[in-house]
């Protein structure tokens, strides 16, 4: 194991340290003592991949923009590479968000920058297979590989997205070695970083602003363009005048963002853009009781349900250090697009201890001994590509008693088959590269010492919801775009079908899951939609 505790990391890069000198207009709504009322050309709800990209694009077009974020403004000066503060401040529900029956935990960001502040920087263009399926089967137009290419290229340039040039850390390196050994396709991941120190704390907030998240790129740029940013402001509903949306109403949250202060924020705007992410965007639409004649809002919400296997190696892995994701395999992803068993992408996650501890779903000496061997532990994950096969309809966003979103997404047999199959593949890969023991993410499993033993065990284990450990860090869908108002919530410009001046620009537009980590899919699509909206506006 490597002790880095004598290393000191500092930065002079935090752009928010110079907010005043740069004339930025940032309001902490938790400090409001009177109601706040604003007017703008465009109000954008959410500051993640969608909201950040839309804010930069539209403010650059000369429009006045107000950006609202429910979470706090936390910046690199406060990112200390410790788990507790990061989970508390930067994640939805303090990482406690999950599906309704408790079957899946959902990791989603909640601070200025949204999930881009805490994601692992993995950047893929939307796979051609996915775009073709949307065009052929989901009524999506204008989103071919060729039509999106210039937008992806611009955002790649903007966020310095490039193939990771350094050697993978040992955790990722094992995925490469195993793929080579067993003859599986693999490739190097592209990352949105500039001056990356290869530390490994992307999930806890980049301490040196190397990650080109919205927090340090598009939002500062929008603020330079005179956009106003209001954080600690949770949007309750959109405001309407007949068939037109006229802005939003928000409530100010307490400093710890766990409660309401009772103050309200009203923004009147010519255009309203929802970019709160899948789950929160459909929830705003549901709370607003907007027309939904086919009951499409919140349906078909996808998660890339993700399961894993953990293996212990004789050599040091130090899975908590180094670029978290640098190698992937799509070998089992596209055998079929929308028929047959579910396809999946293979990647690895970083294993900071409190985070990793949740992967085991086990207790007693098994967990104590596993955690003692964490420096020698490698983890593979399989991200199941949901939403393509007719047996994979995803989850449904509902509202709880307090108007909070709840995602009802039971894990069905179709996905469970993928869980079992992916365990077999990942465990074989781990034994093929010399692990001394490995276990699948099943509550009744243990570490097995040979591939033969592990294979027999996964054939015997009861594969059922709540017995298996499945989670998600990718939330998509729930307000799908499409040309047919009967099948979709917005048109292919992101405009809500049934009201004027209301747009959706985030991952909730996706009619299926992506089949890849979604951030670049959101950047590219929203760049396209926001550019068009900006051009219409100024025309």
């Amino acid at each position, binding site marked *: 194991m*490597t*002790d*880095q*505790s*004598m*290393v*000191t*990391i*500092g*930065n002079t890069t935090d752009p928010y340290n110079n907010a005043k000198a740069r004339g930025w207009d940032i309001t902490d709504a938790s400090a409001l003592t009177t109601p706040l009322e604003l007017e703008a050309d465009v109000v954008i709800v959410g500051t993640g991949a969608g909201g950040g990209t839309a804010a930069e694009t539209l403010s650059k077009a000369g429009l006045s923009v107000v950006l609202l974020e429910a979470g706090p403004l936390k910046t690199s*000066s406060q*990112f200390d590479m*410790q*788990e*507790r503060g990061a*989970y508390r401040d930067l994640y939805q529900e*303090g*990482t*406690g*968000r*999950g*599906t*309704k*029956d*408790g*079957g*899946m*935990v*959902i990791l989603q960001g909640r601070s200025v920058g949204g999930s881009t502040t805490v994601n692992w920087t993995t950047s893929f263009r939307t796979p051609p297979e996915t775009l073709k399926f949307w065009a052929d089967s989901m009524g999506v137009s204008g989103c071919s590989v060729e039509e999106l290419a210039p937008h992806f290229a611009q955002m790649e340039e903007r966020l310095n997205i490039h193939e990771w040039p*350094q050697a993978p850390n040992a955790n990722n390196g094992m995925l490469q070695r195993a793929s080579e050994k067993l003859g599986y396709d693999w490739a190097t991941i592209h990352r949105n970083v500039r*001056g990356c*120190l290869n530390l490994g704390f992307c999930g806890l907030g980049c*301490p040196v602003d190397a990650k080109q998240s919205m927090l340090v790129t598009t939002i500062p740029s929008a603020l330079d363009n005179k956009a106003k940013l209001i954080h600690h402001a949770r949007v309750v509903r959109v405001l309407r005048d007949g068939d037109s949306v006229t802005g939003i109403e928000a409530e100010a949250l307490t400093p710890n963002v766990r409660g309401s202060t009772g103050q309200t924020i009203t923004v009147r705007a010519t255009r309203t853009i929802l970019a709160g992410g899948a789950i929160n965007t459909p929830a705003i639409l549901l709370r607003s009781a907007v027309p939904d004649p086919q009951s499409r809002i919140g349906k078909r919400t996808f998660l890339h349900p*993700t399961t894993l296997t953990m293996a212990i190696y004789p050599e040091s892995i*130090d899975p*908590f250090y180094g670029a978290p994701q640098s190698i992937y395999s799509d070998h089992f992803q596209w055998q079929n697009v929308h028929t047959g068993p579910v396809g999946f992408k293979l990647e690895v996650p970083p294993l*900071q*201890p*409190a985070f990793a*501890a*949740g*992967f085991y779903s086990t*207790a*007693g000496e098994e*967990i*104590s001994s596993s*955690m003692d061997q*964490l*420096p020698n532990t490698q983890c593979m994950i399989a991200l199941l590509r949901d939403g393509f096969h007719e047996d994979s309809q995803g989850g449904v966003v509902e509202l*709880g008693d*307090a108007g909070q979103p*709840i995602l009802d997404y039971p894990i069905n047999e179709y996905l469970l088959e993928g869980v079992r199959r992916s365990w077999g593949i990942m465990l074989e890969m781990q034994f093929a590269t010399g692990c001394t023991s490995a276990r699948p993410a099943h*509550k009744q499993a243990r570490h097995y010492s040979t591939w033969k033993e592990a294979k027999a065990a996964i054939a015997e284990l009861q594969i*059922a919801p*709540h*017995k298996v*450990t*499945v*989670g998600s*860090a990718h939330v998509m869908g729930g307000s799908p775009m499409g040309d047919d108002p009967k099948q979709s919530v917005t048109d292919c410009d992101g405009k809500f079908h049934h009201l004027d001046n209301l747009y959706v620009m985030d991952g909730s537009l996706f009619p299926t899951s992506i089949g890849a980590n979604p951030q670049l899919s959101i950047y590219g699509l929203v760049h396209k939609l926001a550019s068009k909206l900006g051009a219409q506006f100024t025309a």
Partner: protein
Amino acid sequence: MTGAAALSTMSAGATLSGCTSSGPASGMKHLRPEDLDLLRAMTPAVLKGKIAPTDTAAIDQTLESFDTLMADLSAPVVAGVLQAFDVLNFGLTRGLTTGQWSAWSKASLEDAETALARLRESGIGLLNAIYAAVIRLIISSYYLIPENAASAGFMPPRKVASVVPAGTPAEEGTP
């Protein structure tokens, strides 16, 4: 797939429980006296090999961390956790779901291990979910304490404001 506090809504648990709960225990923000009894019994079983039943200092430190973690979750998640605890605390459901018919304050290490095994092996998904939530929260609470994270090999650099480390490359390089 997580982590830290990983529990989702377990609202169904509420209906299993008929008990009324008291307020937080002295010095705690969320955990109630009966929750502390439950967790004092469970913690040495969940972290066997790390915390002995007699190691009250380590147990108390973990429970303090647990209470802080609860404060960091959302209100609906906290409500779900407390409902799950109600199921495990209330005499009838405690006995039926865990086999623990006397109070948790009287439970031995073996009793707690039996209770965990029953929740884990149950054919009722909700009980499996409660098992997962209880063990994840306890284990996460333990490893959110920096010296325990260090025992798992995690010793990250110290953050010092406004100091650029020597030899920082302009573009990607090794640290």
